[in-house]
């Protein structure tokens, strides 16, 4: 393709690229974590509050050891609010599973939080902090039951008010025993009419005020960063993050590296979800990123751009872009590209995926569908083509694997690691000295379940995750082998 054609195309694409606003970890606000608290292995599920201030539901499953007591406490992830902890809450032991503990915690402000979990038991005391984002996502409409209770009371109050005002200027001022003079009766009638008018006016103004309050609240509802993608004439993707206006603490000049990259960009070809590009655009200006596109088929791609703020707040910006066939070099550095072998039907019961290097990835689970809102450890095994377990798995950006979860209609997107859904940068802030994000960055290697030398990892990798709602999902499971990054593509139905 000549440069001129490319430039014209790029211009056209810039105009048609639509920014689609959705929230961080799109449609999948709950947090899942698997890791260790001291000598205890835990699986934690936190359902983030939908209103702020609001309640987060904490579920801690202690996978080994015998806990006596589990305590949970919420703190901000960074800043002065991370210094003093409120009184811890004792989590309640589940009647069904004695290893599971649950608690509810209030989160009073929007932003990045952490839940500090302390376990006491036969293996001593263990502690771990799990990052959670409190982002208001909705308001409720008036419940019919509440309305049915309030409406008659409201009518009683209005007519009661009218009657009392009437009595107060009429009967009440007459001497005891004295008949009510016609003048007073007349005055009472006028007073009742005026009182009714006043009541209507008060109701009208209250309704206006209610609207204003609701509007003020709507302004607190999370608005994700906007993303403007554009293909330039060199075949590079140019990205611009823009703040559509939300709470003041969100800025664009505070992005911190997550696995060594300031942005993780996932481009998935729609509607088939048959091609995934996992790229790492570099920031050249505040909110301005670019990256060379690797070889990729033409089509419309949904872009999910993951970034992490210095406060520990992760965000996912979303946009669509239509690309011509890209004929560049294969992916470089940590970038990767995965395409589904042509004409593979969507099959939620297919539990194996052939890798491009001849290996096979197997999803170790029962056939059939999974359940929504249920924490799972999604487990995958990599074998050589001849069936022997793979012995050459390497850390991919410091992780044994990366899972990308997409609902078929793209309303859910989650980027999950073996320790869970929180980005590594937020995890580092939660586990380190939270008042100093740089110190936290330094300490993360101590707490992350990853080897420091590139020696071979076990052939299985697991991801703690719960699907937010029913539907058909596609999973891209990425691992790194001696042959390069390999991606297993799986489908699953969730009830």
């Amino acid at each position, binding site marked *: 393709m000549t440069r001129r054609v490319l430039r014209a195309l790029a211009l056209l694409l810039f105009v048609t690229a639509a920014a689609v606003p959705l929230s961080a970890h799109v449609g999948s606000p709950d947090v899942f974590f698997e890791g260790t608290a001291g000598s205890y292995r835990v699986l934690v599920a936190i359902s983030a509050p939908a209103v702020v201030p609001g309640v987060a539901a904490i579920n801690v499953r202690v996978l080994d050891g015998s806990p006596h007591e589990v305590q949970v406490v*919420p703190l901000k992830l960074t800043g002065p609010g991370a210094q003093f902890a409120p009184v811890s809450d004792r989590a309640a032991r589940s009647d069904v599973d004695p290893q599971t503990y649950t608690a509810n915690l209030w989160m009073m402000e929007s932003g990045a939080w952490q839940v500090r979990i302390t376990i006491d038991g036969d293996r001593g005391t263990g502690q771990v902090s799990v990052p959670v984002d409190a982002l208001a996502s909705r308001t409720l409409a008036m419940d019919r039951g509440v309305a049915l209770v309030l409406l008659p009371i409201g009518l009683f109050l209005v007519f009661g008010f009218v009657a*009392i005002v009437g*009595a107060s*200027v009429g*009967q*009440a001022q*007459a001497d005891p025993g004295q008949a009510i003079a016609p003048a007073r009766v007349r005055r009472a009638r006028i007073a009742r009419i005026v009182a009714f008018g006043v009541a209507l006016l008060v109701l009208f103004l209250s309704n206006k005020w209610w609207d204003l309050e609701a509007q003020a609240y709507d302004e607190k509802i999370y608005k994700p960063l906007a993303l403007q993608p554009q293909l330039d004439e060199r075949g590079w993707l140019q990205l611009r993050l823009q703040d559509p206006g939300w709470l003041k603490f969100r800025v664009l000049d505070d992005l911190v590296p997550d696995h060594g990259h300031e942005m993780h960009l996932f481009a998935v070809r729609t509607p088939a979800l048959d091609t995934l590009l996992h790229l790492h655009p570099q920031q050249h200006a505040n909110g301005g990123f670019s990256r060379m596109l690797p070889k990729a088929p033409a089509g419309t791609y949904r872009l999910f751009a993951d970034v992490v703020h210095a406060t520990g707040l992760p965000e996912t910006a979303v946009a669509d872009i239509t690309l011509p066939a890209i004929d560049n070099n294969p992916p470089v550095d940590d970038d990767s590209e995965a395409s589904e072998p042509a004409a593979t039907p969507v099959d939620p019961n297919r539990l194996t995926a052939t890798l491009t290097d001849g290996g096979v990835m197997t999803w170790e689970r029962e056939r059939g569908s999974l359940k929504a809102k249920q924490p799972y450890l999604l487990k995958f095994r990599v074998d050589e083509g001849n069936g022997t377990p793979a012995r050459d798995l390497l850390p991919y950006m410091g992780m044994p694997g990366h899972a990308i979860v997409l609902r078929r209609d793209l309303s859910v997107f989650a980027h999950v690691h073996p320790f869970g859904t929180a980005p590594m940068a937020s995890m580092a802030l939660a586990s380190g000295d939270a008042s100093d994000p740089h110190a936290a960055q330094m300490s993360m290697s101590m707490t992350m379940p990853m080897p420091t030398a590139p020696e071979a990892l076990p052939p299985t990798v697991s991801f703690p995750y719960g699907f937010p709602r029913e539907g058909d999902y596609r999973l891209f499971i990425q691992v790194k082998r001696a042959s390069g990054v390999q991606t297993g593509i799986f489908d699953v139905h969730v009830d």
Partner: protein
Amino acid sequence: MSSLAVPEALPAERTRAATSATAAAAVPWYVWTALFGVFSGVVGAHWDISWHRSIGRDAFWTAPHIAIYLKGVLAGITFGYLILSTTFARRDATDVVTIWGLKGPLGAFIGAWGGVMMLASGPFDNWWHDAYGLDVKILSPPHVMLLFGAHAVTFGTIALVMGLRGRGNAQQRQALLLPLFLLGGFTLVEFMILEMEYIRLTLMHSAEFYRAVAMSVPGILAMYWIMSGHRWACTRVAGIYTAFLLLMQWGLPLFPAEPKLGPVYQHLTHFVPNGFPLLLIVPAIAMDLVLRATNAASRNRWLVAAIVGPLFVIVFFLAQWPFASFLMSPLARNAIFGSHYFSYFTVPTSYGATYRFYAVEPSTMEFWRVMAMALVIAPISARLGLGIGQWLVRIKR
């Protein structure tokens, strides 16, 4: 109520001691129960606000909530009893009003209406928290509904007392002064709670603060002056307000409390009180003197209001402005003045925590514009207070 009221008149030769004993008896039991409800309400409200500032986490069955709802319960029992007993046991009573076939003193109807309002705010507030999150402010629509209902219960109690005074003899009128002044002090406390977001220490060098105070206090004081006919009514009412707030200011920090909500920005171990009382007593004294001098009860009420309104603002400004400077100084950071108490959620860099005044008005011009508004609003408030007071004086049932 004749069955509950005292004998028509007392022989003049009775001793002073006997008089005071009978005077106590001249106040029927239901005035005391209703008054205790009002007291419980203001204690509960201050305690609850302190709870939110110190512990944070809320539940329905907290002690301060019980104190607040006790007001509704006592109102329900007292006013409900008055209405039902009159309707069914004294069908021929003539010292009552009839509403929807029910008979009872006007104050009982107002108070019962307020009780219903208080109760109705409960489910509304619950829904509000589900929809918009826990409100960290006082003035949300369901809270205003609760406060309005609570005010109506107080107002009903005032009307009840005024009805008794309206048809009582001199002795009874005298005996009912104490409940009336207590009600006055609690009314001031209630209004100051309503305006709490506008009258905090950091705003005391802004005109908005003076405007907020000018809106309610001159009216309340004038109302009680007219209602009681007492030469020191304003002073007494402001004195009860001051005593009550000092009790809260010095009492609350004696009880342990620690935050159960994050983020926690201030380390604290005891309940934080809600601030030193405003120096309302100073302009109250001035109002008493001027109201007496102008012979307010018999004069043109607009004229009287036009004098005492601005007088209130000016005297209050002269007293509170320097006192606010003192409260911001290190000298006030002790158990007496309590400027060192902060909510657990007070950010360390905030105006309050760094002892700085926040200027609401961006310019001097704007400051004086709002101040001028305060000078206009105060007489309107005073006139309203005189009017409502005069109307309550005329209540006989």
